[in-house]
């Protein structure tokens, strides 16, 4: 009972710190809204059937109106409905990538940091050096072109290049913590390496990892939409936001709404996650680069 009370106190304190900044609240609202749209796109979008290969040339190329608030594209599909489904693909990409990347990267970072100055450290950290020696976007484009371009291969590509950042983050913390007294004490009483890695060191790395994750959602969405924009990610008719922008910009001066609204939707999502991430960083007072 007492622990529960403490937890509540802790939560209240954190919430107070978080909600002091109105921008954080805006971020939280935007993120909640995108998640809500993602989950219920089938029910709340005006024309759910427009997400796939749907054509209705009678209502093609209509400018924004009350029936189609974001207009319709060259196939006669409602842009608003497709944008709502687009959130789904962006968030799915970010979620999948982070679920695969965070445990792998963290584990490698813990191992390399704890076995500091051994061959394990050298192998893992030199490998991360190679992956950060080139801009992520170029590497992502290369990997997904070598695989066959599709949404899933874009996820694989981003996963393959993203783990080093978590490894480096955790490595920094773990390699300094391994000399702390509590780790040495655990070693002295004969705790197993697994116990030390996961019960002694890991809890101290969670705040920065969590902060980095919220900020990374935005980055993964950005890279994912860039990939599908250039044609190396999700392929049509998938209503991915990047694909929609690239479909529309060819008709630019006249049919501006086809690409403009999906583009602004990307900005909206990324902005939300950035604001939320900054709020969480200030709340947990964790430094993340």
């Amino acid at each position, binding site marked *: 009972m007492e622990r529960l009370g403490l937890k509540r106190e802790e939560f209240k304190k954190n919430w107070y710190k978080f909600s002091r900044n109105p921008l954080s609240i805006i971020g939280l609202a935007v993120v909640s809204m995108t998640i809500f749209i993602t989950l219920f796109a089938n029910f709340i979008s005006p024309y759910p059937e427009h997400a796939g290969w749907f054509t209705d040339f009678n209502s093609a190329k209509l400018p924004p109106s009350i029936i189609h608030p974001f207009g319709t594209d060259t196939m006669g599909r409602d842009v608003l409905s497709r944008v709502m489904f687009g959130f789904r693909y962006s968030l799915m990409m970010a979620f999948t990538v982070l679920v695969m990347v965070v445990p792998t990267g963290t584990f490698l970072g813990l191992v390399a940091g704890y076995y500091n100055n051994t061959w394990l450290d050298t192998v893992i950290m*030199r490998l991360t050096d190679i992956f950060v020696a080139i801009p992520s976007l170029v590497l992502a484009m290369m990997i997904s*072109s*070598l695989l066959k371009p599709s949404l899933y291969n874009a996820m694989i590509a981003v996963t393959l290049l993203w783990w080093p950042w978590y490894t480096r983050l955790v490595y920094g913390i773990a390699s300094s913590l391994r000399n702390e007294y509590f780790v040495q004490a655990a070693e002295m009483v004969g705790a197993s390496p697994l116990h030390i890695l996961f019960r002694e060191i890991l809890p101290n790395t969670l705040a920065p990892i969590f902060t980095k994750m919220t900020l990374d959602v935005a980055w993964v969405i950005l890279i994912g939409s860039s990939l599908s924009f250039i044609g190396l990610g999700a392929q049509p008719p998938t209503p991915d936001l990047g694909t929609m*922008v690239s479909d529309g910009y060819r008709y630019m001066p006249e049919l501006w709404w086809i690409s403009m609204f999906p583009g602004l939707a*990307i900005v909206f999502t990324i*902005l939300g996650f950035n604001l939320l991430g900054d709020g969480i960083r200030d709340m947990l007072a964790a430094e993340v680069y």
Partner: protein
Amino acid sequence: MKMSHFIARRLFYSIFVLLGLSIVIFTMSRIFPGDPARTALGTLAPQWAVDNLREQLHLNDPIYVQYWIWLTNALHGDLGMSLVTKRPVNTDLATFFPATFELVIFSIIISITISVVVGVTAGRRANSLFDNIVRVVSYLGIAMPSFVWAIIAMFLFGYLWKILPALGRLSMGTVHPPRITGMLTIDSLITGNFAAFFDALKHMILPGSALAVGRLAQDTRLMRSSIVENLRKDYIAAAMSYGIPERTVMFKYLMKPSLIPVVSIMGLEISGAMAGSFIIEFIFNWPGFGRYGANAMLNKDLNAIIGSVMVVGVFFALINIAVDVIIAYLDPRIRMAVRSE
């Protein structure tokens, strides 16, 4: 340790990283599914032609032999033939690189100038109206993918108001300067062709701003926060209380330490612009290295992909070394640390 030793050590280390990078890229290009020879010739080509090309590209050898052949050729400056343009990849890269280099440098100039001016102004008047406007705009800028800004800018400035050219490097009818460096602004200045110079400059504004947008916003915030941080330092208060003119304090004591974080991310910035060019040049039909690389990737042109990615890697490594040297110059603590090591 002398500066030259420091640079030599960094160079030596970079060579190892680049070798590792080339191994990773080469392995990926060979182990992922799909026959490069079949991709190059298309699905209709007869089997014997594919077999011939496989032999020609050494695809039947073990992978380490293939890598060794590739590496020795690459060190001799031969990156193989592009399967799409049917020309040597290094000729292609040499043709297209200057256009991108010019654009990247232009975008860096945009982002550094604006971010320093705006960041310093906002930082000196922290929490004023101007500061708050800058904060909101920079949040938007960071959240703006370069291609979205490219399309918005193209729509507004290129099509709606028609004040800036949207596509290509020169307008129709402008006399093209002869190719000397491949960078149009420099070539036209050398030949004294000022009409072409201003035309080329105008064509760079939209793609250059698209490459700069995200970094610009981030730099402005960084500059602002380091100004705010350094303004609180005792030595600034001391300098002010000695009665040193504010201008001198600003430029001599405040700017130099505040520039360090901005310079230290400049390496990332230039390579980010380089990566952004893979997308932006596509939109603005800019005949550069980025468009070449992106096209190679879309057509699965293996030699061209490996070549252009390695060029980005080499460029990144060199830039990072240059940045380390500049920081050592700006920050005496690092300079001393390097010397005393």
